[in-house]
């Protein structure tokens, strides 16, 4: 990021005519104390962010290389890369990485993103009452507290739950989905909870496409799918990019939803990285090891975050 910034700043000045650089000599030169006084209102926020956000991140980077434990240990010692070496040999860690990948691809990439786009596209054509009703229901699922959403979907997927009741009606075999397919159940739960965000993003993006363009294509005889593929999707590709990044970042940090539904189980069959990290740090008392996992998660998150920034860069 630091490397990209100066280029970006130069490029921005050239690109955006709406914000020309201030003409020099137009304003009296600021003195240093005055400039500092102007930045003074930033200080409460900066202090909070440094102490409670940057501090923990730095601390995270430090204890990931120690053998800090939860109980009965006066001093922790520096162990180098041992925690990381251990992680990559640990079956359970690799299992958690795999499950996190499945969870992210199914719930964010395939689920929230695609359903959100489909809903937004349908909403453009639907009648107003249906649009309002659907929007209201989907957004309610999103606004509900995470733990409540977890309970609702726990009830939905469990044996004797709503899903099984529907399957019974259709004479299909029922089962305890939280036991047979736990990672899919929590992925669907995350789709239920998170689709509204994509829907709102895509509704805004589709609303900005000038009507003339799609109408012209329609008169020219382009069918619905072709219009979607050749006109709509290319025009909203930036929204798709930012939405994918934000969805993925949100999905990487889901804890409460899975915790409530399965506690990561049965066994560790729905134990994604945040739950694995929690278990190592607290149930197994290995804070150092848990933090090493956290640091890896943070690095992956930062990577996505940087991609997201690059996508937005022209607009900052």
């Amino acid at each position: 990021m630091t490397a990209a910034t100066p280029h970006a700043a130069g490029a921005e000045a050239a690109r955006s005519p709406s914000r020309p650089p201030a003409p020099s000599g137009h304003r009296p030169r600021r003195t240093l104390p005055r400039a500092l006084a102007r930045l003074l209102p930033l200080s409460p926020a900066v202090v909070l962010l440094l102490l409670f956000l940057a501090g923990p991140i730095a601390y995270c980077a430090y204890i990931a290389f120690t053998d800090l434990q939860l109980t009965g240990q006066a001093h922790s010692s520096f162990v180098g890369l041992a925690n990381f070496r251990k992680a990559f040999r640990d079956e359970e860690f690799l299992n958690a990485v795999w499950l996190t990948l499945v969870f992210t691809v199914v719930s964010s990439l395939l689920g929230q993103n695609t359903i959100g786009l489909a809903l937004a596209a349908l909403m453009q054509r639907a009648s107003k009452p249906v649009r309002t009703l659907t929007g209201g229901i989907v957004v309610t699922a999103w606004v509900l507290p995470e733990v409540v959403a977890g309970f609702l979907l726990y009830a939905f997927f469990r044996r004797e739950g709503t899903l099984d009741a529907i399957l019974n009606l259709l004479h299909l075999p029922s089962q305890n989905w939280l036991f047979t397919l736990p990672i899919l159940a929590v992925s669907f739960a995350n789709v239920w909870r998170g689709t509204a965000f994509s829907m709102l993003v895509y509704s805004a993006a589709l609303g900005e496409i000038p009507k003339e363009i799609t109408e012209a294509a329609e008169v020219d005889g382009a069918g619905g799918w072709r219009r979607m593929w050749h006109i709509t999707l290319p025009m909203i590709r930036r929204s798709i990019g930012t939405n994918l990044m934000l969805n993925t970042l949100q999905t990487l940090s889901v804890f409460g939803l899975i915790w409530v539904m399965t506690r990561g189980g049965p066994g560790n069959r729905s134990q994604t990285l945040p739950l694995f990290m929690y278990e190592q740090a607290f149930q197994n008392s290995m804070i150092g090891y848990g933090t090493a996992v956290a640091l890896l998660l943070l690095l992956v998150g930062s990577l996505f975050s940087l991609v997201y920034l690059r996508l937005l860069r022209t607009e900052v």
Partner: protein
Amino acid sequence: MALTLVSRRRSRRLAADAGLLVVAAAFALPLAWVLLSSVDPHADLRVKAPDGVTWSNFDAILTSDITFTPLLNSLVLCGGATLLTVVCAALAAYPLSRFRSRLNRPFLLTILFATSLPITAIMVPVYALFVQVNLIDTMQGTILFFAASQLPFAIWLMKNFMDGVPKELEEAAWTDGASSMQSLVRIVLPLMGPGVAVVTVFSFVVMWGNFFVPFMLLLTPDQMPASVSINEFFGNRGMVAYGQLAAFSVVYSTPVILLYVLIARRLGGGFALGGAVKG
């Protein structure tokens, strides 16, 4: 030609309506469960018409132990943290929005970067850190962390809303000798009332629903907010009373849904997320 286009549009509208209704029904099922079960004397795990309507589930949970104390804790925690967030964000947004400085751009990029970091990942180190500085299991410590975790997004939103207030109005005040603090409080903030409301409500709603932060940083049961105490329905009370769990979920969720409706109405369906995503 024109006619076929119109009729094609009408059939397309019907198809879109039908598609949306199917999705809406699927999304509504879990919501129907919680509403129906909360008034059902014999609630279980599936959506069904209740065996008669009863308020006994609500009567059973509306005690200070089960509901009022956790909700009060949530209110203190989220209210305090929201207040801190909004004040700090408004102060920070002002110089970022009003004064040109070489620091603005790197600062904003860092803020934007921080908005999307997975906070979940730093909770283990935050716990370890809080143990060392004796902030673990304290309301004030949790409030401070909550505020810090919400600040990047709040600053970003607030700055964007503030950019929408024309500078000319303030310049008049400056020539009359008002300080920048005076013009922020007397001129800018009143003009961006809806923006401040969005930042406030959004921060509050996010914290109200957050489970992991209080789950990690608070230990004493008396201090737990509703997001954590709701798990008691499973663990310590033996048989799960689904009706009561549903009733509690309704009571706990209603405030944030009402708050959301409040700002969604004021700002139209699009909400500020468009602004957040587009920058």
